[in-house]
């Protein structure tokens, strides 16, 4: 195509390096993207909470403005403040951009052996309400009530996202995970909305399964699962369980979809302060999240190229970071992926 070879549209992505190993794995991702000639320009921003007018905690204006404009973010791990006085940064980001869907594709990585092979599923977790509403009361001394909130609106929104995701990513089925036998009204509402939305997506197979049955079956045969959609707590547990199947948080990508077209992709591991700054970190999780981001942006060719280079490096086993079983540095691992990407040109 004549025009394509002359016009390169650079898309801006807001980059939040984060804390601990965040900066170095972000640098690794930027290097690999450069080697792949991905049409991305990075806008680095800090999201450490500040107190806004009225005393309310918020993310810095520069960060919010950047994200509102670019709509796409890539984020490294943020440290959890203990005495900083402000709420969890992840929570603040979630609220600021109404990040209602947490999406984790879990695919077995060839070359990084776990007891489970051929895992290829996606967990889609409602991320705004459910058991994480934060509404708790001490009724009388020694009796605590925690409120799980399920609304029609949020359930519909997440169900719609799940089915659209399935359609856009050529997935065959969506399974709603629930415990409506016990939580009849709340999970029942969630289930009903999923059923309603399923009616508009007849090309996708819809099934329902109890949370405990999913857990039971997941650890015996994860290949039977495709796309799973569920409320907040079940999503939290299942997404981590599935990450465990493929090798843990160090190799699992994650994406958060917000209202108004905002999407923030992130690695979900910790900041690893003990190895920060020592060139030992594994950038795979952040890199695969960035690949997920490219797919979200429609840049499938680039995504495939970078993902293949990453997987090939891991499969080859010659240059691996310590957590993957090798003894190479982060920069060496990154360099190897860059080399492979360039060889693919």
């Amino acid at each position: 195509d004549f025009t394509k070879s002359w016009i390169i549209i650079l898309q801006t992505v807001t980059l939040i390096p984060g804390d601990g190993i965040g900066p170095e794995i972000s640098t690794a991702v930027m290097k690999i993207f450069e080697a792949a000639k991905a049409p991305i320009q990075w806008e680095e921003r800090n999201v450490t909470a500040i107190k806004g007018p009225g005393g309310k905690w918020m993310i810095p204006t520069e960060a919010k403005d950047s994200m509102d404009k670019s709509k796409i973010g890539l984020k490294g791990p943020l440290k959890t403040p203990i005495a900083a006085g402000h709420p969890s940064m992840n929570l603040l980001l979630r609220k600021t951009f109404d990040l209602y869907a947490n999406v984790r594709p879990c695919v077995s990585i060839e070359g990084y052996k776990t007891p489970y092979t051929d895992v290829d599923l996606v967990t889609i977790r409602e991320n705004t309400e459910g058991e994480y509403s934060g509404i708790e009361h001490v009724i009388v001394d020694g009796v605590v009530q925690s409120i799980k909130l399920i609304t029609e609106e949020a359930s519909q929104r997440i169900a719609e996202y799940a089915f659209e995701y399935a359609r856009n990513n050529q997935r065959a089925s969506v399974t709603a995970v629930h415990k409506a036998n016990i939580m009849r009204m709340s999970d029942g509402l969630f289930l009903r909305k999923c059923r309603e939305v399923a009616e508009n997506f007849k090309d996708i197979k819809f099934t329902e399964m109890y949370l405990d049955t999913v857990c039971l079956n997941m650890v015996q045969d994860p290949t039977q699962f495709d796309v799973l959609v569920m409320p907040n707590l079940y999503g939290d547990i299942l997404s981590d369980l599935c990450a465990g199947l493929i090798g843990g948080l160090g190799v699992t990508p994650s994406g958060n979809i917000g209202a108004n077209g905002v999407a923030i992709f992130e690695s979900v591991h910790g900041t690893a302060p003990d190895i920060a700054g020592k060139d030992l970190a594994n950038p795979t999780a952040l890199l695969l999240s960035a690949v997920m981001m490219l797919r979200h942006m429609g840049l499938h060719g680039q995504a495939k190229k970078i993902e293949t280079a990453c997987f090939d490096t891991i499969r080859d086993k010659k240059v691996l970071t310590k957590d993957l079983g090798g003894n190479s540095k982060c920069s060496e691992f990154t360099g190897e992926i860059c080399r492979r990407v360039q060889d693919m040109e």
Partner: protein
Amino acid sequence: YPPLTTIPPPAKYGGRHTVTLIPGDGIGPELLTHVRELFRFCCVPVDFEIVSIDSKSTSDDDMNNAITAIRRNGVALKGNIETNHNLPPSHISRNNILRTSLDLYANVIHCQTLPGVRTRHRDVDIIIIRENTEGEYSSLEHENVPGVVECLKIITRKKSLRIAEYAFNAARQNGRRRVTAVHKANIMKLGDGLFLQCCKEVAAGYPEITFDSMIVDNTTMQLVSKPQQFDVMVMPNLYGSVISNVCAGLVGGPGLVPGANYGKDYAVFETATRNTGKSIANKNIANPTATLLASCLMLDHLRLHGYASMIRKAILATVSETRLHTADLGGQGTTSEVVQSVMREIESKGPRTSEQI
């Protein structure tokens, strides 16, 4: 299998115990029939009082009969009762009603790798102690505004202390070294925070046992990669459902693991993962192992240890025979073949005298 409970068994009349039997739905009736068959074969001094619960009925009569029978006999063996989750919230899960009415506060599941069963992980030996009556299973929900539903999770000091005490006591009695509390107190600061606090308090009274805690999502991640690190685990209701199903899956699936529900005065035995197995019912393909092992737990509870050991040994010998494996274990064996094999195994050990039992 030393007893995990200190409840004295109900009285024997004429040397025989009466146990309530609730067939339930799906594979329950056929598997419990096999239990009766096996017990008759072994001359186990147990008589079953069968109480049916029609899961399709919305009346309370069946439930009341069952609860009365269990109160009378003190012990029950049950299949899972199906819950139609499309019925309105007023129709509470029958299994749940049984547990709360009889205050069966401890659900105890022992997941062990069995010889002859091929699993991805070896040397798994975890005792799960799950609070069985409150938490997310309180059945308290309301819709104040259309489209906005609140579901209450209740955690009380009294029940948290009670289950923690049960867990540490069980750990001590069984010579186990470590109790791990599973929670999500970073998010549910008050609820799970209270649970965790109670566990810590009880732990102080058991200095020989190591106590630690782990957040539930990390726990599931650890279980699928390194389950050998866990010993005894204690947790509130919902996490108990997740963890017990994960662990049962790790050691071979729903067909293998028995479960026990203990209260102060009553004990009810069933499979660990409480499935009805509707899709495989009445096809002679269900794995009877979990149900048979549950009946052994029941025999131990009745202090009929001789019978319990005899039957358990035979079951474990049978399960190690790959050619007898049912479909859930990847084989083509039938339910009746497994039961027959257990009986043959028992028979081959020679006639039993009352001294041996």
